[in-house]
């Protein structure tokens, strides 16, 4: 049974590990969580992202956006590395998430065949 006691132990452990997690210069993952995204499977994508971050112990900002008008491409997930263009991946599956995390987020290579849009750094 998961208990609060376990949570306290976890906190003590994490406090040793994290001296300086701050949001400056962190990679970002943005998931489309509009009605269209949710209907297309965004929650499964989010669960896959959560698992990947846990498995690989990655420090990433995970956030959401609403409907951006590309409903037919949902589920959408964007990856933005610090100082680089924001890449939108479309029609992705939970299985694609691992590949995007490894190839793009960790190794810095855009997964071209899943990408549907590019937003220039500093753009809107």
């Amino acid at each position, binding site marked *: *049974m998961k208990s*609060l006691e376990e949570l306290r132990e976890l906190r003590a452990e994490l406090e040793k590990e994290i001296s300086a*997690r701050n949001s400056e210069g962190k990679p970002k993952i943005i998931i489309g969580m509009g009605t269209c995204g949710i209907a297309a499977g965004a929650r499964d994508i989010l669960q896959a992202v959560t698992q990947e971050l846990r498995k690989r112990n990655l420090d990433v900002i995970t956030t959401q956006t609403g409907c951006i008008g590309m409903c037919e491409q949902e589920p959408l997930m964007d990856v933005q590395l610090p100082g680089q263009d924001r890449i939108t991946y479309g029609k992705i599956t939970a299985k694609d998430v691992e590949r995007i995390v490894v190839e793009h987020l960790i190794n810095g290579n855009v997964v071209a065949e899943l990408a549907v849009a590019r937003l220039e750094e500093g753009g809107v």
Partner: protein
Amino acid sequence: MRELSLHILDIAQNSIAASASIIEIYIDENSIQDRLTIRIADNGRGIPQHQLAQVMDPFFTSRKTRGVGLGLALFAQAAKGAEGELLIDSNVGAGTTVTATFRYSHIDRAPLGDLAGTLLGVIMLNPEVEVVYQHTCLERTLRIDTREIKSELGNIAINHPAVMNWLEGFVREGIDDLYGGE
């Protein structure tokens, strides 16, 4: 939407868009009265009176970019299809409460689905928002309040991957217990 938990996630996104800092999700499964009630209450900016009548219209949205907003209309349809209804109570500056009822045993009543996934998703994406989850099945009630969890965490973010891992087990076990799990 295949699951009612996806509608809950969708309505919670409305709360986030309305800048809510507290989202309360209530689920009451009353198989004796044959009633299922789902309520999502927030303290967001609220819906102005003159728009309240329009929000169930799929061709109404408060968004400026596009003219459709399907979330509430779909949820209302899910309730109506199972001998229930959807009610919205909102006050500007105070918040919005969406209540959906269903006949519990209705053949067209969608399954609740992955409630834990919905709750964890809202917390993962919105660590700064306080979420209350209260789920009752007859005499058993599960109540989770992120404020209580955060008070144990100090400076550690609630959506830290290791904390999310703990939280997932905590939530899933809690919900299993409601249904008579060990």
